[in-house]
């Protein structure tokens, strides 16, 4: 047996390469910089392109341009960079431009703490663009997840033609750890569906799907626009056309909610308590529950790896059986609001911490035992 040893950021970069990523543009920011460093050493030998933008806005613009030319693109930043990406993200969301964005979260608000972790951006990633169109947000718990979820992220970005976020955390991105790279089975690689008919209308699509793609620079003339457009890619003010497109942007993601739901669970017989967590916090939750079980107090866990779209079906199904539900987050309560919305007839308890350090298993046990 041989174990690989790398930080989450390197694992994420390796996952992106495995997914076929061939373009990266970014701007250095702690704690995401090493994704950029890794892509810069990995892409050129593979014939890919890696550049440093003059700022985050530009980096995202390069990614949008390259994606429209048919590249599979990645960028990486932290909270302050997501702020700057925002207007470009709205463009990519509304105009269906595939992108994968790694957000190695740090403690905010604003400049905050460059080297302190927190799950600061969980609602920001979902709502940090104009118009409220859904996005996909995946969240890793460790380096191995960074590797695997990067592939899922690219697959979803290609299929749904939308930005997909990997909401990592300083505590994963900059922690080096061992895992067995050879034991991983990656999902099959999904490529962008290309248009194959006669007359190409760049935004003509089935009601629940993204439109088929053709690259700018290919044989067929392609139009892309950030303005409200009809199927032909020209501005429209026709309310029916606008409404149809707005509905489709939502439906293409929401109708696939079940399929996009990634999670781990550890359901214990005879337990009446379910701990719901995500990201690095779920590791401490697992440790805490292992100890509690050895003390004769079995507690079940649900670790979400897809946060957006909210895995409503899963939450309903799993939540039903439990008397007590506790949500634990490395912030002061962001995702718990979604869980309370879905499990509205349950009393959902919450513990959150935002002080630059990991929530410890001891603290989690205290929360569980303190009924």
């Amino acid at each position: 047996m041989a174990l690989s040893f790398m930080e989450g950021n390197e694992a994420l970069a390796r996952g992106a390469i495995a997914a076929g990523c061939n373009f990266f543009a970014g701007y250095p920011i702690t704690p995401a910089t090493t994704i950029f460093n890794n892509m810069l050493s990995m892409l050129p030998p593979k014939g890919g392109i890696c550049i440093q933008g003059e700022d985050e806005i530009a980096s995202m613009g390069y990614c949008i341009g390259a994606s429209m030319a048919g590249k599979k693109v990645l960028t990486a930043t932290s909270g302050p960079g997501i702020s700057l990406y925002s207007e470009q993200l709205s463009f990519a969301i509304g105009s269906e431009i595939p992108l994968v964005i790694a957000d190695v979260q740090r403690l905010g608000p604003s400049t905050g703490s460059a080297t302190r972790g927190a799950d600061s951006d969980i609602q920001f990633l979902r709502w940090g663009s104009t118009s409220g169109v859904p996005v996909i947000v995946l969240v890793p718990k460790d380096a191995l997840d960074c590797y695997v979820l990067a592939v899922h992220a690219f697959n979803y970005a290609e299929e749904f033609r939308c930005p997909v976020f990997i909401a990592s955390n300083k505590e994963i991105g900059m922690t080096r750890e061992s895992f067995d790279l050879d034991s991983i089975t990656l999902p099959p690689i999904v490529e962008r569906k290309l248009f194959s008919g006669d007359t190409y209308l760049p935004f003509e699509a089935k009601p629940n799907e993204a439109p088929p793609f053709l690259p700018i620079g290919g044989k067929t003339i392609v139009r892309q626009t950030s303005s409200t457009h009809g199927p032909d890619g020209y501005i429209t003010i026709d309310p029916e056309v606008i409404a149809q497109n707005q509905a489709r942007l939502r439906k293409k993601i929401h109708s696939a909610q079940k399929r996009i739901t990634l999670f781990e669970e550890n359901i214990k017989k005879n337990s009446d308590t379910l701990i719901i967590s995500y990201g690095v916090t779920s590791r401490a939750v697992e440790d805490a529950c292992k100890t509690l079980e050895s003390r004769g107090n079995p507690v079940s866990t649900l670790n979400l790896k897809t946060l957006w779209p909210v895995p409503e079906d899963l939450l309903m199904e799993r939540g039903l059986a439990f008397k007590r539900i506790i949500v634990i987050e490395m912030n002061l309560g962001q995702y718990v609001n979604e869980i309370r919305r879905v499990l509205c007839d349950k009393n959902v308890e919450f513990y959150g911490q935002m002080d630059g350090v990991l929530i410890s298993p001891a603290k989690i046990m205290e929360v569980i035992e303190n009924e």
Partner: protein
Amino acid sequence: MNSYLNKTRPLVYCPGCTHEKITKGLDKAFDHLKLPANKTVIVTDIGCSGLFDTFFNVHALHGIHGRALTYASGLKLANPELNVIVTMGDGGLGIGGAHVLASCRRNLDITLIILNNFNFGMTGGQYSATTPTDAIVGSEFLNHAEIPIDICAVAKSAGATYIAKCSGHDADLAKKIAGAIEHKGFSIIETLGMCTGRYTKRNQLTPKTLDQMITDLPKRSGVIEKNQRPEYGERYRALAKERTTFPEAVTIEKKITLQGYQRQEVVILGSAGMRIVTAGDIVCYAGLCAGMNVSMKNDYNITVLRGQSVSEILISPEKIGYTGIESPTIVLALSDEGVQRRKKIFATLKPDTFVLKEKSVTIPETSAEVVEIDFKELKIKKQDWALASLGIMAQKGKAINKETLNHALKTRFNEKLYRIAMETIEKMTSASS
């Protein structure tokens, strides 16, 4: 003439607007150069110049205000065969200034047509980065307190390889645009024009006064000799091509079997320059070559040559969940700064925790077993203290042993560094035995 204009989408500019002249000039330039439509893309900014893409039968990308050059750069890098033309007004020039400067410095083969009509036409004639100080525009008095920018002068100092400036009513406009497109590298052509919907309503501006402005300003007619250099894309690809080795992941085979190994939590407290991170790495490698799971977190200042350097390592036969330090089994106290950074842990240490303390370092009270060592006395340089401490750990069988340490050093270092490291280690193992 073979027109690239889309017959189903007639021009919609205000009567007399110079944009119409420039649209037609660009069409003629395309025809003159016989650019293949499917190898040509117009990237447009926001404002009236942002309408350009809708009039042409070429690829088009219309994006966010000020950012047109960023999409253009992504397209050109991804597909070097594309002819990339950007249209941007004086508004986009102001808001996207950083991208204009970066494009000048970079010299990617893109043509930027600046449609300077001295105001924001679309939003009500507000002042822009190019509005003359004495102009009367829709911003009350605000422009009277500022001066306009000469983008051509700025572009020259930013390294642009091609700069042209002309009136949008210039009889040779098409030829001048074609010249800019033909240039291999980043080319700017600034056109001066009339916004009849807003600007010329309150300011005297005619094709004749535009000509006068061109005459009065420094002449900009193309190639800037002093800035000539290879096109960015070609340069980039040449440099990238030299990078042929893909960095494989660090993967460490299990070579050594340890019996009854218990989870270890190692904290190394030192300072910048003491090679704390390297020592931490070696501890991890030692664990990995025994098939253990490991995790490692480092904490050092952003000013990397000063301040604390702390490494926290977990080694466990079990899969590692929580990566925080809960109950250290080993603490190496190698500098006061490092100790200060984690001073709270000392009170929590258990009696069986192994603390190795350099003689000069002060540590808070603790119930742990403290071994003091005088590295200075042993003539070991500060930069080797962490490494030397690993020798002591191995000698005492704390988290690592001689075999795993030796293996880790061999894997982590090249032959020469390995030998030097082993000298330090052997010095320690004989001193502490």
